């Protein structure tokens, strides 16, 4: 009994909060262009599910492309750094520069240089998402205890074997944890880039819908887009968590 109540509690709390929100908006007569109630927000979504859904799809496409790019690039550069001290010295400072540069500041440049709107958005989102998966993988590749490296040296293991049989499996959980953080950041990066491109760019993402609804004072629609964004973020986070658990199960066996 207690257990199931605990499981249902968040749902009931959310329902209560939504009801209170709706009642407050109605009771105080708050105009819908300042704060719409939950019902108005759902209604706004239902009047144009295709438009918002299409925008969500566009933003998700950018997000996932950027996430895959970050994962491949991050893992590859981290492995290059693990393989060679020269590569490490060459790469690391630039990775940090990339991380500390505010995306809002460089997005306009990226858009000018890259040209193609979709590619520009992917580049911006990749810049934001790249660092966690890269830094985590780099840490993981060096995380084996010294005795393990001694063991591999003792048996005359090649660099390649040490990388594939020791460093990579040890780094796997680090990479997956980094990937999960990067997943959320790829979405943030995609949305920020869409905001910067605004109506002049790739006019179909959720951020563009938010801007557009703002200009038109369609605040309920703006909220609907926001809710879709949060839901997308939550789903990405949970999906990457489940993916990570499955990969580690595959590595560690039943």
């Amino acid at each position, binding site marked *: 009994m207690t257990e199931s109540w605990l499981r249902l509690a968040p749902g009931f709390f959310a329902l209560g909060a939504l009801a209170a929100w709706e009642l407050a908006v109605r009771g105080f007569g708050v105009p819908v262009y300042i704060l719409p109630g939950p019902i108005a927000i759902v209604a706004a979504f239902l009047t144009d599910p295709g438009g918002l859904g299409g925008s969500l799809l566009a933003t998700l496409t950018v997000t996932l492309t950027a996430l895959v790019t970050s994962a491949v690039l991050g893992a590859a550069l981290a492995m290059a750094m693990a393989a060679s001290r020269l590569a490490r010295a060459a790469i690391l400072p630039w990775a940090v520069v990339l991380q500390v540069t505010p995306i809002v500041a460089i997005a306009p440049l990226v858009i000018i240089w890259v040209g193609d709107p979709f590619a520009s958005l992917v580049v911006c989102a990749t810049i934001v998402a790249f660092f966690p998966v890269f830094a985590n993988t780099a840490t993981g590749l060096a995380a084996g205890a010294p*005795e393990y490296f001694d063991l591999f040296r003792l*048996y005359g293991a090649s660099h390649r074997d040490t990388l594939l049989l020791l460093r990579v499996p040890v780094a796997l959980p680090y990479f997956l944890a980094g990937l999960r953080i990067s997943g959320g950041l790829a979405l943030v990066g995609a949305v920020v880039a869409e905001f910067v491109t605004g109506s002049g760019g790739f006019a179909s993402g959720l951020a563009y819908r938010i801007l557009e609804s703002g200009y038109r004072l369609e605040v309920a629609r703006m909220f609907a887009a926001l809710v879709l964004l949060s839901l997308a973020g939550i789903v990405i986070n949970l999906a990457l968590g489940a993916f990570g658990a499955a990969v580690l199960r595959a590595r560690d066996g039943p």
Partner: protein
Amino acid sequence: MLDIVSVERRFARGVVALEDVTLRLEEGNFLALLGPSGCGKSTLLRLIAGLDRPDGGRLTWDRGRAPAAGEIGFVFQDATLLPWASAADNVFLPLRLRHVSRAEAMPAVHDALARVGLAGFESARPRELSGGMRMRVSIARALVTRPLLLLMDEPFAALDEFTRHGLQADLVALWREIGCTIVFVTHSIYEAAFVAQRVVLMTPRPGRIFREIVSTLTPGPDLRLDPGYATLVTSISKTMAAVLAPA
């Protein structure tokens, strides 16, 4: 097998890990390096393994060359198993690194696991095994290449006493069976007296060899009940106390 002559090893900030260490390893002998923490016994083991180089002195192998990969087995204090690999795959590792195919290696892998009493545990993952069983896998991994020399760095220090006694007795039996040379680092007088034929006492700061005590006891599982064992433990304890007291 090996002559260690006036070997010296210094670390940063003037720490002298080893000073003027001279020792000869005899073929087929079971030698224990005994001493308190910081006396350089692990450093000496790493020098023998070729994992580290001396700053002075030399190591001369009777065969005229340092052992090749796989001719030395090393067992660490931690079992250092790959947690994602089965017991068999862990034991297979040294052969795999020498590019032996799995099919070719499996008889040797099964044999090594059987020798340490783990037949039937081939597919078990390290986390499914107890601490003592993990150490047995680690010993099997060290034996799978049929090494001439087995180096062990406090392998049983992290185990409970009952498990430790079992492993000590099995190790001695294993050594008598396969007849390889063993250098066994320990900080336990009881352990050194039980397993070894030669007990080399080391003292810290700087790490030096203080004395060598040769055991005349017949190794075996019931050695602990032998009055001679108690005498040996007493004699080592007295020697050790004499050297450590003034410090």
